[in-house]
């Protein structure tokens, strides 16, 4: 079963793929790190991260539904911890073998 720290590590690894290892070496990424103010992530980079998350976790997460439930202020202020909490909640609610990657996010 995936533990909380594993999800954080996985998210940070995917973030590194999106923005580059060098960029992430300059700062420590933790649950309180914000995508906008701290990481200055471009919105399209956030989309690229979302695509990687969706591919990695498959149908167990629904990133679009997660975003649809937030207002823009909440999206602007989103922390790495907000994201990992959502993912952990979804993983806890669905069994490992439900990981069908094709349906939610082709």
């Amino acid at each position: 079963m995936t533990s909380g720290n594993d999800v954080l590590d996985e998210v940070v690894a995917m973030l590194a793929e999106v923005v580059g290892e060098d960029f992430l070496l300059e700062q420590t990424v933790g649950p309180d790190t914000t995508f906008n103010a701290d990481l200055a992530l471009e919105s399209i980079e956030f989309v690229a991260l979302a695509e990687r998350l969706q591919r990695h976790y498959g149908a167990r997460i629904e990133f679009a539904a997660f975003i649809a439930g937030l207002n823009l202020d909440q999206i602007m202020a989103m922390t790495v911890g907000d994201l990992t909490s959502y993912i952990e909640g979804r993983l806890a609610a669905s069994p490992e073998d439900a990981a069908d990657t094709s349906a939610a996010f082709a």
Partner: protein
Amino acid sequence: MAYVRARGVRFHVVDLGRDTGRSPVVMLHGLFTGSAASWFFTAAPALARTRRVRLPDWRGHGLTERTPTGYDTATMVDDLAALTADLPPFAIAGHSYGATVAVRFARAHPGRVTALALVDPPFVQIDARWYAAQGENAQGEDAVRGEDAVRSRIADLLARTSLRDDLAADPPVTAAELAELAGLPMLAVVGSGSPFRPAADLVGRALPAARRHVLAGGHDLHITARARLTPLLGAFLEESHA
């Protein structure tokens, strides 16, 4: 879908939602500060609850390759045809220049489009420099952004591509062009403070049956009026049986 090679160009395209009985909707972003993210963080996730949603990045925007040329609407219409060839007939929601391409795509491919939603369409002749100034001045265009990266991307588009010339050479959509689309369900939403607000009157004259709304705000209604625009788009797609 993530990256697609089409017409010799590496395009980035995001798909959300699932195939249902309803038409997919392809959502087209505007130039310069726009990208798939423009819709990804605004109306697209809500629409994806009931239908497939496709969000392409235009050439030189988002994660699509920056080509030296090809920013005229004729080329972008052909790009769109290639990026939607696998879809059944679909609805289009286009913001800004995305709305211009949407109209010209619908004229060129009449059987392919089920409904057209135009969000602050630039069907009014204004100085092309206005577009570029948007990228330099606009705050909050992106929900999440690296402002320096966005500025340098816009500077590169202006300095290294034909975009500025293509934009200047492409005339705005006319009433005559719109009138050819009679019978196609159409929605025009404009900003009360946008330079393109008169476009709603142009659409109304050409197509009296078109639905028109003025929302409080400027050009970037998908962001600043997200809470109003998103349900408008959803209801329009449902009413159009798209």
